[in-house]
């Protein structure tokens, strides 16, 4: 495909909405990108929703809006820029300052995006203030928000799902590489994931993984609980570390494992028959083997409990 660079400003492409003329401006752009495209989209304020589907076109719909009619002039201060280089598309929200009155600021303008992409598209989303939803893409999936929630579902190549102060939810994800899922203050929920390696962390939120299939998994929190429900792989390695939360592992007994568990002031409990190799500090530290010991699990908490449940 011949490479072209197309930069389009909002002014040329706006379609006024009759009902919300003063408060909204709409943007629409359709690009021919082919089945294996790449999209990078960034936004300051407003939600981003990207969804994969059939076809080879990328359809970008956006709505700029202000809360108060009196701020309608501020809509001019924000441009939506779309650039295309071959099958790679970049969408950015530029705060230009145009249309601002004295002492006005354009922080009241939000832009919400809804983008349909070919299923094979590689997607990278970065949002400052707004939620992110990424659905149904087979290319590498990377979704991040600073203060919004991040939700990623039905993706075939998860790379990252991260938020600073929002919750992070990942459903039905696959990854042939290292999937990195993280929130600083939010909760993290992952359901039905198959990944070569998965790292999930939060500082103050709980971390829950259900229906996990991975060769290597690492779950970390400082004050949150860690829950892992799923299978473990022979030769797999699984690490769980939290300071004040509990570690609850619910796993099947098809694969044996070595266990290193420790807690400073909590308890260690297991529904499995453990062949204990060492135990110390009144049950606060335990080295044990279940079955053939082919996988390795390390679970550590400072003031919480470690519980090993049979699935």
């Amino acid at each position, binding site marked *: 495909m011949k490479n072209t660079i197309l930069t389009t400003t909002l002014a040329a492409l706006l379609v006024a909405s009759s009902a919300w003329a003063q408060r909204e401006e709409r943007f629409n752009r359709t690009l021919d990108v082919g089945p294996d495209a790449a999209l990078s989209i*960034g936004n300051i304020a407003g939600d981003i929703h990207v969804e994969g589907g059939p076809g080879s076109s990328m359809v970008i719909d956006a709505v700029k809006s202000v809360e108060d009619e009196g701020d309608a002039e501020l809509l001019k201060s924000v441009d939506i820029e779309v650039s295309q280089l071959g099958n790679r598309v970049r969408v950015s929200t530029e705060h230009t300052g145009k249309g601002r009155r004295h002492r006005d600021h354009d922080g009241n303008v939000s832009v919400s995006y809804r983008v349909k992409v070919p299923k094979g598209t590689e997607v990278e989303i*970065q949002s*400052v203030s707004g939620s992110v939803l990424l659905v149904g893409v087979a290319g590498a999936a990377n979704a991040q928000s*600073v*203060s919004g929630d991040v939700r990623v579902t039905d993706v075939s190549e998860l790379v990252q799902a991260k938020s*600073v*102060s929002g919750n992070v939810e990942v459903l039905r994800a696959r990854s042939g590489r290292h999937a990195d899922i993280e929130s*600083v*203050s939010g909760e993290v929920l992952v359901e039905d994931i198959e990944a070569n390696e998965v790292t999930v962390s939060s*500082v*103050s939120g709980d971390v829950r993984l259900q229906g996990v299939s991975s*060769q290597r998994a690492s779950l*970390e929190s*400082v*004050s949150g609980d860690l829950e892992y429900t799923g299978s473990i792989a022979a*030769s797999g*390695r699984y690490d769980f*570390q939290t*300071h*004040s939360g509990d570690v609850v592992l619910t796993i099947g007994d098809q694969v044996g494992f070595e266990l*290193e568990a*420790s*807690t*400073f002031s909590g308890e260690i409990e297991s529904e499995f028959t453990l062949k204990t190799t*060492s135990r*110390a*500090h009144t049950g*606060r*530290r335990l080295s044990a083997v279940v079955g053939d*010991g*082919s996988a*390795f699990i390390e679970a*550590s*908490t*400072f*003031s919480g409990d470690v519980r090993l449940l049979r699935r």
Partner: protein
Amino acid sequence: MTDEHPEIERLNEYLDQGLDPRDHRPLETHLSRCEECRRTLEELSAIVHAASELPEVAPPERIWESIAASLIERKSLSRRSSRWRSALLPALAAAAALFVGVSLWLVLRTGEAPTAADPEALAYMVTEELKAAESHYDKAIVGLEQIIAQNDGVLPQELASVLNQNLDLIENAIGESRTAIATEPQSTAAQESLLQALRSKVTLLQNTILLINEVRKGQGDNALDLIDEMRKTTDPSNPI
């Protein structure tokens, strides 16, 4: 085969009997000609041998024990991925260096070589290892905090508040862990919790700087480069 020196991981695999048999002859041919590689192989072999002399120590040496156990149970480790073995190699070297270093120190101090079964020597090793790790983390944290202090006010107040609350949470975890170590110096749970909390603090501070740069520059690309660079220079686990 070229006469390039084999990677250390390859020598490790050779020692570990994990190398493809088809690669034995070229490697052995190189070894027969290269004194440097023969010496490296001997050193690796010595590490394994030294480890086999170590006792299966009980707590409090969990940090040490996890390394020692890994060394002792090389056979079971060989079932795991080569990546895991490669990751272990620096630990092997560190364990050996630490063992040799502490042994030398004790020899100099007492005139007697410590036995590997000496639990006090092992406990000392762990304590020193922990102190060294703490020192590295503390230095990294001070550097990162200085950068953040120089950019005070750049982040939106709400975001700065969320980050500060979580830093306080981590600081609390660090404090609790240190208190626990003071009362039970040999508690592995407390030791590990301290190291994890320090690591979490470094990561959060790094991410805070990333956000500051995103806010200042408007785009994340440069900030991502910067944070990667910072990770290389401040991550205590990075063996530069």
